[in-house]
C-alpha cells in the first residue's frame, strides 16, 4: 500500500515517457490477459435455444448424432462454469449451439428432399396409370 502510493507520487512528479509506457503496459496487460471470470450466459442461452429449435423440428429423426453432441456439450459447458473455467465454458457453449444448428439444418434438408421424392413418386405413378389406361383403350 505504501509502496503503490509512493509510486503514484513519483509518476505524478516525474512524468517521464518510460514511466507512462510502463503504466500503460501494466494496465493493458490487466485488461487483455487477465479476463474477469464471468459465466458465458449469452452463449449458454443461445445453445439452449438452438437445441429447442432443433427438437421442435424433429431433428432427432434425421440428425440424432449432432443433436446428442449439442446436448453433451451444453452439459459440459455448464460443468465448466461450475469449475470456473469460463473460456472453456464459452467455447463448449458455442460448439453446442452450432451442433444444434447443424442438426436443424440437416433435418430440414432431409425433410425437404423427402417431400420432393414423394412428389416425384406420385407423378410417376400417375404417368404409369395414364399409360396403362391408354393401353386398355387401344
Amino acid at each position, binding site marked *: 500500500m505504501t509502496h503503490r502510493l*509512493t*509510486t503514484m507520487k*513519483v509518476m505524478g512528479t*516525474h512524468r*517521464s515517457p*518510460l*514511466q507512462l*509506457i*510502463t503504466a500503460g*503496459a*501494466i494496465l*493493458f*496487460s490487466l485488461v*487483455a*490477459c487477465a479476463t474477469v471470470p464471468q459465466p458465458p450466459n449469452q452463449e449458454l442461452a443461445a445453445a439452449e435455444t438452438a437445441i429447442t429449435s432443433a427438437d421442435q423440428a424433429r431433428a432427432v429423426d434425421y440428425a440424432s448424432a449432432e443433436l446428442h453432441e449439442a446436448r453433451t456439450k451444453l452439459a459440459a459447458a455448464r460443468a465448466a462454469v461450475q469449475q470456473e473455467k469460463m473460456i472453456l465454458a464459452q*467455447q463448449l457453449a*458455442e*460448439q453446442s449451439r*452450432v*451442433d444444434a*444448428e*447443424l442438426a436443424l*439444418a*440437416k433435418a*430440414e*434438408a432431409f425433410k*425437404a*428432399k423427402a*417431400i*420432393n421424392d414423394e*412428389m*416425384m413418386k*406420385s*407423378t410417376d405413378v*400417375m*404417368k404409369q*396409370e*395414364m399409360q396403362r*389406361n*391408354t393401353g386398355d*383403350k387401344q
Partner: protein
Amino acid sequence: MSTQIYRFNKLIAIMLTPVIFAACSAGPIKPEGADMARNNLIQLQSDPQLASRAPVAIQEAELAVRAAEVPQENVELGRHLVFMADRKIAIATFQAQSRLSEDQRKMLSEQRDNARLDSRTREADRAHSDATAARREANLANMDTEIALQQAADLQRQIAELNAKATDRGLVVTLGDLLFDTGKATLKGGAASHLGKLAAFLNQYPDRTVMIEGHTDNVGSEDFNLGLSQRRANSVMTYLVSQGVASNRLAAYGKGENFAISDNESASGRQQNRRVEIIIANTAARQ
C-alpha cells in the same frame, strides 16, 4: 530513492513488453484443419446450385473460416475456431440444399399438375368417345325401331294388297276360282301376278309356315271334287316353290266340297265355294 524506483520501473517495462507481445499478439502457428475448411468453403461457394441459395449462412461460414485461419498461439483456441468453421460450412450447405429442394418443388408440382391434367384430359376424352359410341348405338336402336315399324307398316299394306283376312288360324288369303279353268288344276296366266305377290310376301317373312287348302262346290262326285281340290292346292304349292318358297314351310290339302263358305244353290254361291285358301301362320315356325 527516486532513482531506485525509476530503475525498478524501467526493469518492469523491459520485462513486460515482450510478455505482452507474446501473450496477446498472434503466434506463428496456423490452426490445423483451417486449410481444409477453406477448401470446403470454396467448394460450396463455387457450386452453382448451392452458392446463391444460402448467402447469409455462407457469409457466416466465411467469417468463421477467416477466424480459424488466423495463426494462434493457443492450440485449443485454434481447434475450437476450426471446429466452428467446419460446422458453419456444413450448416450453410444443408440450408442451401433445403432451399434447392424448395425451388425444385415448384417444378415438380408443375410436372405433377401436368400429369394430372393429362390424365384428366384423357379420361374426359375417353368419356366423350364413350358417350359418342352410346349415342351411335342409341341411333342404331332407333333405326332398328324405325325399320321394325316400317316393316310392320309394309306387312299391313301387303296384307291389304293380298286381300288377306286375319283369323284365329292366321292370315287367310282366298284365291278365287278365276285362277283355274273349270275342272282343271292348271293355273291360268293371270294367276301369276296375284300369286307372285303372295310368294314375295312369304319370301319376306321366311319364318312363317303356310297351309294351302283346296275347296270345291258340290257339282260332280265327291271323290272327283276331293281330288280336284288336292290337285289345285298342289298347283299353288308348286308355283310357290318355283318362286323360291321353301317346300318344308308349305303343306297342301284337298278339302273337297265339304267346307263351303256359301250356299251351293246359286251360281255366285258356288263360285265363292270354288277356292284355294292359303293360311299363313301368325307365329314363327319352330324350326
